[in-house]
Structures are given as structure tokens and as C-alpha cells.
């Protein structure tokens, strides 16, 4: 019997697991995918939003305002790379200038520090590659960028290091309420018992709520397509460049990433199911066209990959974070679309307080250690330090991924440490091996070999991303 079971190991579930592991609680994290950060948390803009956008008085506004610093502090503890690069919300017409002014006013209402409205000329001085057509822009200095899946992996890993349990490939198909709490059943018939249950299931959160008879909300999956460019385009802009928002979302952005690439996107297309994460010809065309509207010099010949992420929206537009009216002890944390990543640390605290208010006993865990070893430590070293490090850890000397400079040692670590990588995509998200300009062309066979060795499984069973995603179909008979 766990004290708290969290359904969904995305950034919200992961950050909540870590927050709860600060207390003397047994925590279980269930994930339907084969890895953490498999849904929206692996494919979004990676933006820490300044907080000017949410409607004042909403939960989004409240959590965004306090969430930015909380997120950066957590990232610091977990050694997750982030950068406070600031953002610019650009207007292209008189009418849009007014929207910029409105966003400024809204930001003031939301208590966002250091907002400034700049003229087209002023904004091009600080961001020279911006289009000549930009007429004004809102400068948001506290905004930043972070890698969403690295944050999730680090949060879950740290929660596990502090005693939390992670069960992947656990697709919840039934939840039964009894006098002690909940019995949660997987598609394979495995059960988990828990006093409290928290629904962080992202795009599936309405389906999970329905399992306890809660039909109070419906998730609208909305796909966003992106194009990621090579690092040689990574300095095209230094701020995150937005266009003024429309009814469909925050529009197409152009942003550097913490890893040094350039990210453009997303589109916003309502899709039938959360599995609809295919890219489309029209979608990718839209990304190109609108990104060039903000920054005409982006060189799209430098694209290294395209992807699509599905966000969980809801018709009322605000986060849903409350105890379900259908079952005591069951908390919905749903409709966490933008600025969900920004708010994730704040949401984790908010949910923890909510759980306390409905009867969860919070006693601090004196053994909690909130720090996590930096998986990219080697890359921060000087040549002399690297030399010493390799002498002590020779596997760090052997580069496997030439594009991103990832060593055998880093890959083996990623397969061993919490949460362990099971497949090529898992290694990629943890180490960046295969994330570079050749997209795994050279390193994939070597990564497969390391996965096979470390997990002591036959080479042909190594997959790209879990069950049924085998890389090879068998040995060639001599």
C-alpha cells in the first residue's frame, strides 16, 4: 500500500513525485509508456514563460507568477541546464501594437517584474536578426528556456534516489475505490494499492478520471509541430521570439535551445487522439513561413529534425487542480497545457498542500537529498580536468556520438542510473547521443551494443522506443 500513487510520469507527475519524496511517504509513479517524459513533456517548446499571458485571477496566472523562480531553483538543484534568455513578443501592425500594450498591462496585473514595451527600432537593437516588419515588442526579462525531458528525467531520477517507485509500461485500465483508498490495475493485470491517487495523465487525464466516475472535464488533444535546426543556426536569435498570441495559442516561436540548437514552432491543430503526433506537410510549411515572418534569415536548410507534440487543453482554458468530486482522495491535475512546464515546480507544491488539506500527513524526510549528479559534468571541464577524469574513468574517453561528443561512459551511466534508459530514444534523451546533426546515423549501432551489454539482452531485442519498436529483425544466418 503506497501513500500516494501518481498516474503519469510527465513533467508534472515527475516534479510531484520529487516534491512528495521530501516527506516520509511511500510514493509510486505509474507510466503507460516505456519511459518517463513520453508524452507532451518530450515534445514542447521548452520555454519558461514570463507570466504576462494568463488571464489575471486564474490558476495559471497565480502559478506562473510564483513558478518561474521555483522552476529555476529546482533546475539548479537537479543540474538541469536552463538559461534566462528573456523573451520578446512581437507585433507586426498597429492593431498588434495594442495587443502588446494589453499584454504589458496584464503582466503588471500578474505582478511580473521587468516588463518593457520596445519600439521596432529598439527591439532590433537588442535582437538584430528580427524582421524589419516588427513594429513593437514586449520584452519579458524573467523568461527563459529549459529542456523539458531532461527536467522530467532528473526529477523522476531524484525522486527514485529518495525512495519513490517508478513503474513504466503500466497502462492504467481500471481504478477501484475501497475504504482504504484505491486499487489501480494495469492492462497486464498488475495492481497497485494506494491511499491517495493523483491523476497527472496529460492527454489521457479525462479517461483516467472517468475510471472513478468523474466526467467533469474533457481533454482536447492539440498537436504542435516543430522544426529543430542545427547548432550552426543556434545563435540566430538570443531571445525567445514570439508573435502576439491568437485564439489558437502563443503562435510560432523562434528560440535558441539550452543545447544550442534553434527551435521553431509550434502549430496548433486539434487532433482526434493523443497518438496523432505525426508531422504534416502543411504543418511544417506553416512553421517555416511564420518563423520567417519573425526572423527572415533563419536558414531552413539546416533543419535536423521535425517532430510533433500533443498538448492537453480543456475548453475553460485553465489548469484543473482539485480533489475529484466523484472520489475522496483522488486528485485531478489536468489540462496542464502552456505554461505547464513553467508552473511544474509550483504545481508540485500546490498539489502537495492540497493533499495535506485532504488528510495526507506530511512529515519531512530527514534523509532527502534534493541534488542530482550532473550528467553533463564532463562537458563543463577544462582539458586538464577532462584528462584526469578519463584516467579515472577510461570509458569517458571513448566518444560514441560524434555530433554531440557523447562518450561510452555517459551512455553506460544513463542506462544504469535512475530512471534507467531502456532503449535508443531513452539514451538519446538522457545523453544527447543521436540528438545531433546526423540523428544517430553513426552512433545508433554502438548505442544498441551498449544497451545489449548493460541489460544483458540479445542485440536484436534492443528497440528504438519500447515494445514493437525493434531496430533489427534478426540475425543473418551465415
Amino acid at each position, binding site marked *: 500500500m503506497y501513500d500516494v500513487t501518481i498516474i503519469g510520469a510527465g513533467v508534472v507527475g515527475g516534479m510531484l513525485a520529487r516534491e512528495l519524496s521530501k516527506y516520509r511517504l511511500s510514493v509510486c509513479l505509474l507510466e503507460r509508456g516505456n519511459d518517463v517524459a513520453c508524452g507532451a513533456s518530450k515534445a514542447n517548446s521548452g520555454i519558461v514563460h514570463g507570466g504576462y499571458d494568463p488571464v489575471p485571477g486564474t490558476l495559471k496566472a497565480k502559478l506562473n507568477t510564483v513558478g518561474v523562480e521555483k522552476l529555476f531553483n529546482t533546475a539548479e538543484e537537479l543540474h538541469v541546464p536552463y538559461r534566462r534568455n528573456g523573451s520578446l513578443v512581437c507585433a507586426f501592425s498597429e492593431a498588434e501594437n495594442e495587443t502588446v500594450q494589453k499584454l504589458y498591462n496584464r503582466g503588471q496585473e500578474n505582478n511580473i517584474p521587468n516588463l518593457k514595451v520596445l519600439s521596432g527600432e529598439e527591439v532590433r537593437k537588442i535582437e538584430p536578426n528580427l524582421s524589419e516588419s516588427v513594429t513593437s515588442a514586449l520584452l519579458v526579462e524573467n523568461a527563459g528556456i529549459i529542456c523539458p525531458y531532461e527536467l522530467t528525467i532528473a526529477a523522476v531520477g531524484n525522486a527514485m534516489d529518495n525512495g519513490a517507485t517508478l513503474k513504466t509500461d503500466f497502462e492504467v485500465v481500471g481504478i477501484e475505490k475501497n475504504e482504504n483508498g484505491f486499487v489501480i490495475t494495469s492492462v497486464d493485470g498488475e495492481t497497485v494499492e494506494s491511499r491517495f491517487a493523483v491523476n497527472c495523465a496529460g492527454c489521457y487525464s479525462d479517461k483516467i478520471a472517468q475510471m472513478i466516475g468523474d466526467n467533469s472535464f474533457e481533454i482536447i488533444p492539440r498537436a504542435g509541430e516543430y*522544426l*529543430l535546426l542545427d547548432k*550552426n543556426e543556434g545563435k540566430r536569435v538570443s531571445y525567445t521570439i514570439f508573435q502576439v498570441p491568437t485564439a489558437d495559442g502563443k503562435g510560432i516561436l523562434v528560440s535558441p535551445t539550452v543545447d544550442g540548437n534553434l527551435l521553431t514552432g509550434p502549430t496548433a491543430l486539434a487532433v482526434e487522439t493523443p*497518438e496523432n*503526433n*505525426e*508531422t*504534416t*506537410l502543411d*504543418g*511544417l510549411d506553416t512553421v517555416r513561413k511564420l518563423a520567417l515572418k519573425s526572423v527572415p534569415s533563419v536558414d531552413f536548410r539546416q*533543419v*535536423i*529534425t*521535425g*517532430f510533433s507534440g500533443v498538448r492537453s487543453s480543456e475548453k475553460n482554458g485553465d489548469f484543473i487542480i482539485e480533489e475529484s468530486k466523484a472520489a475522496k482522495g483522488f486528485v485531478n491535475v489536468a489540462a496542464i497545457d502552456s505554461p505547464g512546464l513553467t508552473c511544474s515546480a509550483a504545481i508540485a507544491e500546490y498539489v502537495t498542500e492540497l493533499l495535506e488539506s485532504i488528510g495526507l500527513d506530511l512529515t519531512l524526510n530527514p534523509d532527502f537529498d534534493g541534488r542530482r549528479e550532473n550528467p553533463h559534468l564532463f562537458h563543463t571541464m577544462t*582539458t*586538464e580536468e*577532462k*584528462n584526469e577524469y*578519463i*584516467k579515472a574513468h*577510461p*570509458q569517458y*574517453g*571513448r*566518444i560514441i556520438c*560524434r*555530433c554531440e*561528443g557523447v562518450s561510452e561512459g555517459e551512455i553506460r551511466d544513463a542506462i544504469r542510473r535512475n530512471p534507467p534508459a531502456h532503449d535508443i530514444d531513452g539514451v538519446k534523451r538522457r545523453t544527447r547521443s543521436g540528438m545531433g*546533426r*546526423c*540523428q*544517430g*546515423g*553513426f552512433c*545508433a*549501432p554502438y548505442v544498441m551494443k551498449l544497451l545489449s551489454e548493460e541489460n544483458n539482452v540479445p*542485440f*536484436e531485442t534492443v*528497440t*528504438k*522506443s*519500447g*515494445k*514493437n*519498436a*525493434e*531496430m*533489427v*529483425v*534478426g*540475425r*543473418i544466418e*551465415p
Partner: protein
Amino acid sequence: MTEHDIVVIGGGPAGMAAAVAAFDNGVTDVVILDRDEHLGGILNQCIHNGFGLHKLGRELTGPEYAAVYAEKVAERGIRVYDKTMVTAVSKDRIVTAQNKDGMLEIKAKAVILAMGCRERPRGALSIPGARPAGVYSAGTAQKLVNCMGYAVGKKVVILGSGDIGLIMARRMSLQGAKVEAVCEIMPYSGGLTRNIVQCLEDFGIPLYLSTTVAEIHGKKRVEGVTIAQVDENRRVIESTKRYIPCDTLLLSCGLIPENELTSSAGIAMSGITSGALVDEYRQTETAGIFACGNVLQVHDLVDYVSDEAELAGIGAARFVKGTLGTFETIETKPENGVRYVLPQRVSLGRNEDVSLFLRVVKPFGKVRFTVKSGDTVLANAVRLKAAPGEMEKLTVRAEKMQNITEPITVCLEEVQ
């Protein structure tokens, strides 16, 4: 920091031939840094034959061709640092690398860049659709099949008719897979004619020109692809879309010289070849740094890689000995029908023949190439046909190189 006369980065065919040529031209302190376990680079996974006809006068497999040069390296006692990754090169010729023994910093008198190239990945092609397992660049599949002994799929579609794609169509067929189609977005193939005949026609594999993969299907593993014809702007023609069930998509859509070290060193590059700008000894615009092989320009035949590497090796050796000389140079320029000419500049005053390598912009029938400086014709040559997939070589005789003052241009005209 250690010191060596010549550091060669890359132990593929270019690196080996350059190192051997440098040694044979009087500089014995040559080292090769290579990231793999064995010398030979990509040749080691090219187990088909067809290598060496021009250079060695016999037909070898890739590993055999590599072995010829690896033996030359060994005979000369040229030191090889294997499993060693170069992470930086500076303009003052300090090479930084790492391997399991630690970090390596070498101060070199000359550096030869021979890092080869990589394949254009799926992402760079922006093919819409899902992102399942089973989408490989052709060379990755080749590595898995030929070096590691695993079958990558049973029903295959190949996008791109570059040579590796053609070779892999045959390889997959021999290994028991069914190759359903090879699609080429251009109206002509980028591969060698001999490969189209021996790898597709002999196996009854259809080649669809002006056709691309419009969408990839499959959640976990590829389940099929939608192929479609394209218009003259390479946009998909909706009405021609057709679904082909398959479990594997191989991509052979171009090679990209691997020049990250070159550009981060600040060495001047060509936007057309994506390699460094060089002179007739393959010296870049940074003195003492040479480049050769596929890192300089993507070649069709390894034989020509070896030729080019020998020039770089000789150049580097002479540079170290102080006998290379510095001359005034003159530019070379592609004109009508010619996409690029390499080297991009040529020294004046050497009493030596100069070979110019070039590719044409599209397929032609019978053509005459003319090399000129101003109105003076320096060389010309007739070819029965010319195609972008086949590199051309034109030689200007030493006596013609006297008294040139204007840039050297190369153009073609179609002839009857």
C-alpha cells in the same frame, strides 16, 4: 602537449593515402588520429566489389582496398591513434583529441583534414509522418547488415538513388528482403550508371524518378510509406499518392562533408562543395592545413579519393620541409552547365600540370568542356555524356599555365 610534423585527422582512404604520401615525400613523423577501431573508415562496411580499378588496376572489395593502404601505413611505421576522437583543431595547428588514455594535445607543423562525410538524415529531409523504428540512412543499415550481421527489415522502400542506396538495394535483396521500390525525387539518378544496372535492373527493382516519400506510417515500427510523384518544384502531386506496405525505409539522399572541425577552426569554406576552399595541393586558405577526400568534396570513387589525398600528403610534406613555396594564385570559376570546380584557386608559376575536378548541374548528352583564362583556351575535352553523379577531371598542361592573368573558367556546351 606533444609535437608531430604532420597530423592526419581520419584514417579512412583519404587519411591513409595522405599519410603514406607525406611519409614517402620525406616527412616520417606522421600520425593518424581515427575515431574507429580499425583503419579504413566507411570502406570497412562496403563489402561489395568495384574498388581499385583505376588506382590499383584490379577490382577489390572495400575492406580489401582499405587493407592495401593499411598495410602501407603499417610498413612505414606510421603511428595510428585508434578510437581517438578529435574535438578541436586551431588555426595555429594545435589538435585536441580524446581517447581512453586521456586528452591529447598535439602541436603539428601541418594538419591534413580527412574526416569524410555523413549521410543526410530523415529529419533534414522533413518527410512528414510518424517517427517509428525502421527508418535508416542507408549507411547505418549497411553497418548493421555487413559489419554486425543483423537484418534490418524484410520489406524495404529506398528513398534516394545515391550510390549507397543502390548498393543497399542489392544487399537487402541478397539477404532475403524484398525491395519494393527505389524513389528518386530528381528526374534523374544521382548514382553511377553501373550501380543502377548491377544493383537495380539485375534484381528487377523498380526505380521511380521524380518521386518521393510523402509520408511515413507506423507507430512503433514502420508499417508503410506513401509515395508520390513531384512537380518541377519538387512538390508532391496529391493525385499520384500511393501506399506501399513495408517495414523499412532506407534513405540515400546525399552526403554532407563532415566539416564541423574545419568551420570551428575558422577555415574558409565553399558554400557549394560544403568543404574547405583549397589550392592545387589541397591547402586550405589557412597555411599548413590541408584537406582531402570526402571532407573536401564528395567523390564517386575511392580511387579518386586516394589520388586527391596523395596531393594533400605531398603538399603537407613540402610545407613541413619548406619546399612547397608560396605563389600568387588565381581563382577557378564554374560557368555554363558546371556546378563547381575544385581546386578553387591555382598557384601561378609552378611548372606543373593542374587537374581540375568538377560536376555538372544536370544530365547532358554529348558535351565539350572548355577551360579558359580570359579568351585563351587552356584545355578542352569531349564526353559522350555528363551527369551530376559522375565527377569530371580535366587537366591543364604546365605550358598552358604560363602567363595567365585572368581567372580560370570551365564551361560546357552540348555538341552533336
